[in-house]
């Protein structure tokens, strides 16, 4: 059996990787493989008569949705050697987690087998091969939504907009979302491609990352209720903003940041560019 191939968004077939880190359930996966079957050898080794109808099938199952479905099935009659192509698409919204691909050679129809050790029930598995791909990592992802800015009332040519809620006690995953404009596909594709991004796309990612951090730090600095001594529950917006400050600007107090922001906004901005490492990993 040939290894599974994954059709990329550009239409090329690449070997199915063990992990697709930039997958989300808006992305369908088109998969294919070729299996060589020696029908005479199969019949001889499984005690099946020449007239037994066989089928080569593939069933996918997903730990993300808990679902299992037949993906493709090809009937096999007679003898000789056959090369069978299996191809199908797994719909993203049905999938997630670990996606398993079970390729099976089965007895397609029940028969009265004179061999007491031979298969007789329809669906009896004669041969089986399992492959798998992990579709989501355990690391949490930054909340992101794709929006048509023109219709949604945002500046039409802006590639992104960071929406930050006002309640510091609210859950971060609900209070923050990076809206990406579907009308600016260059940026949208750069964010979607994650680790497979081109050099230019990595530069775009770096710019977005820096801007998100800057806007969140600006949000923290602008909120006079927030102090270095403020206490918030884990996973709240206040907790995340303080964590961001400690990570990127360790040893800098909110008071001194507010002063810099007021007296020298360009320096404030440059400090964040430096802290985030704008374009530094790409050059």
């Amino acid at each position, binding site marked *: 059996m040939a290894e599974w191939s994954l059709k990329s968004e550009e239409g090329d077939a690449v070997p199915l990787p063990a992990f697709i880190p930039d997958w989300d359930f808006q992305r369908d996966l088109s998969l294919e493989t070729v299996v060589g079957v020696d029908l005479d050898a199969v019949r001889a080794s499984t005690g099946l008569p020449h007239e037994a109808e066989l089928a080569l099938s593939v*069933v996918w199952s997903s730990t993300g949705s808990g679902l299992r479905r037949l993906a493709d099935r090809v009937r096999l009659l007679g003898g000789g050697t056959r090369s069978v192509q299996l191809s199908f698409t797994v719909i*993203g919204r049905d999938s997630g987690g670990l996606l398993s691909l079970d390729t099976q050679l089965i007895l397609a129809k*029940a028969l009265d087998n004179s061999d007491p050790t031979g298969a007789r029930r329809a669906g009896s598995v004669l041969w089986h091969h399992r492959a798998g791909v992990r579709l989501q990592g355990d690391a949490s992802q930054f*909340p*992101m939504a794709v929006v048509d800015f023109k219709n949604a009332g945002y500046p039409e040519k802006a590639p992104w907009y960071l929406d930050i809620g006002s309640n510091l006690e*609210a*859950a971060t995953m609900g209070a923050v*979302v990076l809206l990406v404009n579907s009308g600016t596909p260059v940026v949208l594709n750069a964010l979607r491609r994650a680790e497979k991004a081109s050099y230019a796309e990595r530069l775009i990612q770096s710019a977005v990352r820096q801007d998100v951090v800057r806007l969140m730090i600006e949000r923290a600095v602008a909120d006079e209720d927030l102090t270095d001594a403020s206490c918030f529950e884990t996973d709240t917006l206040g907790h995340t903003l303080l964590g961001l400050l400690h990570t990127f600007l360790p040893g800098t107090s909110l008071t001194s940041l507010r002063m810099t922001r007021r007296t020298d906004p360009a320096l404030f901005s440059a400090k964040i560019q430096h802290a985030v490492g704008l374009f530094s990993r790409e050059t």
Partner: protein
Amino acid sequence: MVYLYPRLLPAAASHLREEYLQRSVEYLCERSALSHPAMFYAATGGARLPEQRLGSLREAVLACAAERGYPAKPGRKQAAGFDIEVATILHRDSGIVPAEAVAGDLWAFLSLVVLPDVSLWRFTDLHHDRVLGTDVTRHVFGRLWWRAHLLYDEDGGREDLYASLSVLNESAFDQIYARRTSIGGSPHLVRAIVRVWQTLDVPPQAERKVLRDFLIRVLRLNAFISFDTLPADVLDEELMGVFQESLSVVVGV
């Protein structure tokens, strides 16, 4: 377009449940809302659901309850009718996709923020599995979405795509769904079981035992038979044979 549903942080869900335990349906009706400070969304995968759609969903579910006596406590028949109708509404109209429907936090948001009054009306003890995200297969609304997803006629051959929902009662379906990995994960197999079950003449008092024996046999066969790969007519024939064995053992026919 895939819409992402709001979810509720587990700590907030537990807190709300505690707060609602001794309250009335009328009080919780006043507390129902379309947003909550502890709500969040899946990181990626679609656009966030507009509040207006969440409001429409509340109205539709509330109307189902009102038809069955809400806020007065429902009888067994009323509860069963509510479950079937709401299963259809949730699956057909909500836009929730399977990859999201496994998330208990999503169902916790619906039961404790959007529809807390209806949750209490349906399950007066607000048992944690019924309203938190601890077990989707027992959740007041989550279990209904999954029941509809496994049973609806996706090929569209029937006039009522959700007709199969009324074939099995809740405890019978629970027997199937409890075997989630082996049987309940395959809509093809679950639909075939229901199709064949409809054609059988099982004495009412033996139904539970026959189904239990049948499922045990299917589980054993599952080790070396790939039910998922069989066309519907061949699968029905296979399952009919297994049901006959169960009937023979349990009922003696």
